């Protein structure tokens, strides 16, 4: 039973939850070894999830459908979670700071929990409808979610920044990265996400042009992704032109992520359009 994709993927939910708890313990009680354990758990979870995603891909071939597991809400949530962990692990490796894990792994765990346990999200492998049969599917989804995941982590950093309203020298908050570094990191993560969101919108446009004959049709998902794009564009310009730093950018980062969530879920649940494959049934 272990080697089915759905088993591996639901297992991942708990591993990420465990990792989040370990990171939290390491942060609160200052036990570096527990933090190392957290990284270890995140790594194991990531491997299990990667295996789960690959296995689901193989299973879809066995069922005769044969498509990348990026075609419905369940698969997109799994991928969002996977991408978030990937971006986080990269950051942890680069920065050698595990506190960000406290604010990043919960996003991944929550996405997995929602995917696995919500009655609205169906986890069966479904065949690909004609509109999705394109090589652009992978490019479009991967780039969009790289953007979404970066924004999730930037939002986590925004929360960290707001918690750390000044540079403490002792206590819990002193172990967050310094305000200056957080600010810079948040900015870079937003820019990184913005870049990928732009690439995601562009690949979507190229694909739409090929499938429907129009690169932009103001469908709700397109419109909302443009709104999200503008929110982050404002955040970047506020910094470049007006020199906004810290708190204001942290707020914009959180507002931006709310817009991402609406683009991701709100559009699927509340508005119908060309992107309704991601909708719950």
């Amino acid at each position, binding site marked *: 039973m272990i080697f089915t994709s759905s088993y591996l993927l639901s297992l991942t939910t708990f591993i990420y939850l465990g990792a989040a708890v370990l990171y939290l313990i390491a942060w609160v009680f200052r036990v570096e070894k527990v933090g190392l354990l957290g990284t270890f758990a995140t790594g194991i979870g990531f491997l299990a999830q990667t295996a789960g995603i690959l296995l689901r891909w193989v299973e879809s071939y066995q069922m005769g459908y044969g498509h990348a597991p990026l075609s419905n809400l369940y698969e997109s949530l799994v991928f969002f979670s996977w991408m978030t962990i990937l971006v986080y692990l990269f950051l942890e490796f680069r920065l050698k700071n595990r506190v960000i894990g406290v604010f990043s792994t919960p996003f991944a765990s929550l996405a997995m929990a929602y995917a696995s346990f919500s009655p609205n999200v169906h986890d069966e492998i479904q*065949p690909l409808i*004609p509109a999705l*049969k394109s090589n652009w599917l992978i490019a479009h989804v991967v780039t969009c979610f790289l953007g979404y995941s970066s924004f999730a982590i930037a939002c986590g950093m925004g929360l960290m920044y707001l918690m750390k309203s000044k540079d403490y020298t002792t206590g819990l908050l002193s172990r967050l990265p310094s305000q200056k*570094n957080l600010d*810079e990191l948040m900015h870079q993560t937003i820019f990184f996400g913005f*870049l990928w969101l732009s*690439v995601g919108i562009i690949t979507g*446009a190229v694909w739409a042009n090929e499938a429907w*004959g*129009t690169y932009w049709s103001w469908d709700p998902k397109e419109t909302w992704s443009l709104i999200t794009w503008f929110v982050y564009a404002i955040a970047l310009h506020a910094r470049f032109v007006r020199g906004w730093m810290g708190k204001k950018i942290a707020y914009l980062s959180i507002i931006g992520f709310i817009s991402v969530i609406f683009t991701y879920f709100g559009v699927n649940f509340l508005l119908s359009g060309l992107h309704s494959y991601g909708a719950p049934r």
Partner: protein
Amino acid sequence: MLLLFAVNLVACTINRFPIISQLYKKDTSLQAVERLLKMPHSFVLSLPSAASFSKEDVNKILPAPVLSYDVENGRLFFKESGKWSYWGVYILHTSILIILAGALIGAIWGFKGQIMLAEGEKVSEAVERFTGKDFPLGFELYCEKFFVDFYDTGAPKEFRSDLVIFESGKEVLRKSIRVNEPLSYHGLTFYQSSYDAMPLITFTITSADGKKKVLSLPVSEKISWQEAGLSVGVMQFLPNIHGGQAAHVWIGDDGFPPEAIWFLKGAEKEFRRGNNIYKASITDVEQRYMTGLQVKKDPGVWVVWFGCAGMLLGFGVVFWVAHRRIWLWVGERNGRPTLILAGRTNKNNMQFERFFDEMEQKIRTMTGVKI
């Protein structure tokens, strides 16, 4: 709204021009020693002797070309990179304008239309989507066959139209199109967008004197049986009623009042026209398809793609190319031979910090001064 956005973009960009231009032109190479120490990144090293850091050593740290000045009791070396990246934002904003221009070109000189084409039929015009006017294609489009295939779950698996293009009666191109595989010809692109099922009903009539006629009836078309002076047409077709297929058939054109009769497939019915009695039945129903094609001409689409590529290039410059400046001063300070390294960057500070630390390490190993 997009126009407002474009105007705003242009205005703001022009407004920023003097600032960017100033940033670009401003020469910051010459700095006082005190200023160097206040840079975001700097470190001071006491040298064993004034000669222990030669001109060659400077070149190892800052490869030529390097600016140099006599500053206070020493020599200042300066190197910068990526200054042009201040203009990256112009690549970015121009690209957005190019994208909007491409969209405008498409809106003015482009065309969007629809074609409903039955299997086995030709068309040489498309219907404009908004005005409903006919638009000549300049060639003929023939639909040889339309296929629709479903998965076991009932979800659609594939829509496919086998299309052939004829120019002055000659076949010039043949292609099967699917949802993600359009056909392009002479600037027009045809996309699979919908379909409609159209039954073709085989209707067999026998007159009282034994004359028999088999007619193929598409829905809503009148077909004549000239010998008998009779016309029939299918007004409505129901694919599933009482477990079978049924058609409402119109009969007339023979001088008697027209009438309409329901036929169930396979069940023969009698009807009377004046003194003539006919027996008729639906002997076969063939499913015929109509393919729904989206037709597009968009001369602006390549302009849009060009703008998108430019935008990504602009992002690359704005994100990754930093204006980095490094000052190196070697001279006598407070009576001791001293080296000062200072640097600043306009972005990616943490990356620069590592770069700066590496340089510091290099200088320490070169001079042999331990930390």
